[in-house]
């Protein structure tokens, strides 16, 4: 097991190396450069060249790449062109917001999606099943920003149940420990601050959960339907086991295998940033920051963020594979 984990982690090195080359080449082949975002459109070519030189962009690409790698081995990703702060710091400040949003969104998607998918499968072909399938299709179809605005309009503006933007009310005087606002409140026992942050999370998390929720519902439903027809479920029934034992131990346990995989992939997807949700709810995560960085051609931020996201993605995949080997003895890793 340990050897397997180490081997998988070592595989990260060539993966990241390849990614860094591709990414570097791709970013620098984009038309325009950071100077275009920094300077007025009327700036002279000389001025542009001056800015490029100041950012070190006048050197050959290979030299620039070498410099990037040299810093990277010291875990230094450079400074943002636009804000001037180290990329690591920018990431450290924004990523917790994305994590909080992702965690809450996935909890909503899982807690609603799995039971609903299961019930739909049990009532296969009836009205409830049809409603669930249609509903989840809607979840996939509705654009997130649209859903976000509707949620905001109804629950924040009209009913006033939830705040409409931000991560915490500005008048909440919270102590920062980890940048995870909800966690900070718990650690410092400032319950109000924690609750306030959680309150801010609900609407964006619901908007963000819509697609994972729909996917989980459909995966669960399909998987349960398949397992219900398996011979071993019939065997369990033939043993006269209680209905709950048959459902939990024999149906759900097996049906969860493919769902776990998709949950892992979906989580990875959400962690790489939810641009639309973050924009609608002015939620300072990495998604909106990345989107701005792209239009600003903020190379260090883009390189750094995407590399870190890649690492996180690989780690999540590893976690999924490990959990799989716990859930399914047939794929035990060595």
């Amino acid at each position, binding site marked *: 097991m340990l050897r397997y984990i180490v081997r998988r982690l070592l595989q990260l090195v060539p993966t990241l190396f390849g990614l860094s080359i591709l990414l570097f080449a791709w970013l620098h082949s984009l038309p325009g450069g950071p100077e275009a975002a920094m300077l007025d459109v009327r700036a002279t070519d000389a001025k542009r060249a001056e800015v490029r030189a100041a950012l070190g962009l006048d050197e050959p690409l290979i030299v620039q790449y070498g410099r990037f790698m040299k810093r990277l081995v010291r875990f230094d990703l450079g400074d943002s062109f636009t804000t001037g702060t180290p990329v690591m710091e920018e990431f450290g400040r924004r990523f917790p917001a994305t994590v909080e949003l992702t965690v809450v969104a996935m909890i909503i998607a899982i807690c609603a999606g799995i039971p609903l998918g299961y019930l739909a499968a049990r009532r296969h*072909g009836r009205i409830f099943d049809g409603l669930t399938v249609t509903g989840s299709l809607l979840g996939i179809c509705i654009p997130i920003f649209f859903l976000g605005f509707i949620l905001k309009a109804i629950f924040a503006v009209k009913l006033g149940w939830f705040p409409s933007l931000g991560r915490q009310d500005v008048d909440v005087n919270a102590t920062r420990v980890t940048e995870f606002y909800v966690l900070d409140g718990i650690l410092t026992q400032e319950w109000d601050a924690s609750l306030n942050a959680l309150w801010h999370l609900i609407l964006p998390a619901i908007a963000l959960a819509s697609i994972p929720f729909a996917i989980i519902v459909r995966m669960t439903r399909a998987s349960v339907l398949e397992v219900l027809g*398996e*011979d*071993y479920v*019939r*065997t*369990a*029934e*033939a*043993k*006269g*086991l*209680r*209905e709950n*034992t048959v459902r939990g*131990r*024999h149906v759900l*346990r*097996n049906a969860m*295998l493919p769902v776990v995989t998709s949950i892992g992939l979906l989580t990875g997807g959400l962690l790489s940033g939810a641009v639309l949700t973050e924009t609608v709810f002015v939620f300072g995560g990495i998604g909106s920051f990345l989107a701005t960085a792209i239009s600003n051609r903020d190379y260090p931020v883009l390189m750094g963020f995407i590399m870190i996201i890649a690492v996180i993605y690989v780690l999540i995949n590893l976690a999924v594979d490990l959990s799989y080997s716990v*859930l*399914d*003895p*047939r794929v035990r890793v060595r």
Partner: protein
Amino acid sequence: MALLEVEDLAVTFQRKGTAPVHAVDGVSFTVAEGQVVGLVGESGCGKSVTSLALMGLLAKRGVKVGGKALFDGNDLLTMPGSTLRDMRGSEMAMIFQDPLSSLNPVIPIGLQVTEVLKRHRGMKGEPAEKEAADLLDRVGIPDPRRRLKEYPHQLSGGMRQRALIAMAVACRPRLLIADEPTTALDVTIQAQILELLKELVAQQGTALIMITHDLGVVAGLCDEINVMYAGRVVEGAARRPLFASPTHPYSVGLLGSIPRLDAPRGEKLKPIPGSVRDNIAWADGCAFAPRCAHRTDECLDGPPALVQTYTGHAYRCVNPVTGDEVEAVTAAATLPAPSIVDATTDSDGEA
């Protein structure tokens, strides 16, 4: 009174907008305490559906079950679901065809055995573990303690079926239904499993319904044999009379299509022409008529009545086969050699 009396069992599958399918169409037979009864027929004749109907394992929707199945005088078909659930696994148990797919792949064998013990005998913890190990030992699985912790994919085919048998007999059921328990196994293992079933039912006094398409299996095992065709029992008799003087042309055909070691070289097998799909509805006549060499116009005059002879032989045919013809088909009035080999050696493979 017989342990199980099945009377006019009918199972109809119907989905909206399609014609109903009469999978089982008036099946009657009885099983006495400790008796081994065979249900024989080709694929699609309704033998498996019959057993699933008895166990209450058919889907609820789109399935209509009619008739009676009295187990100890209580009708299995009308009793409340919870009562039937209490009886399944304790009073009556079932073994299925494919041992790999019939075992839950992600749960150790041990738990799959102990869950039955817990459910019906209230056993938990170490006593349950010990009983499970004893059960595995009794069905001939070596090193049972270790096997309890293993998963189905770590066991050989024969051992998987042994494990399933252990689960089925865990509560000493009075009736065991084996639905083609040897089909997915290779020949030597088949023989061992049959021998094991034979021993178990003899030891525990369990009645056994053996569902198979293999007459060799019933010849070595069954006291009574019911030959099914298109959802009905077309011939029922004790083992010897059935093999010695089969009466229904279908039974004769089945016997004639068994390969025999003592047949002259180069002699071809005599298959029954056509397939089970060629049959006609029983309401229109004998379902076997389109494939039958004995067919007369009379055969298409509604369903043939059940004829009972004084020897206990029953058949459903207007032109029964006489002794001479049987001789011509089956070559001799002997039983086909039981396909049981010495099963005391446990060569049942390694995991």
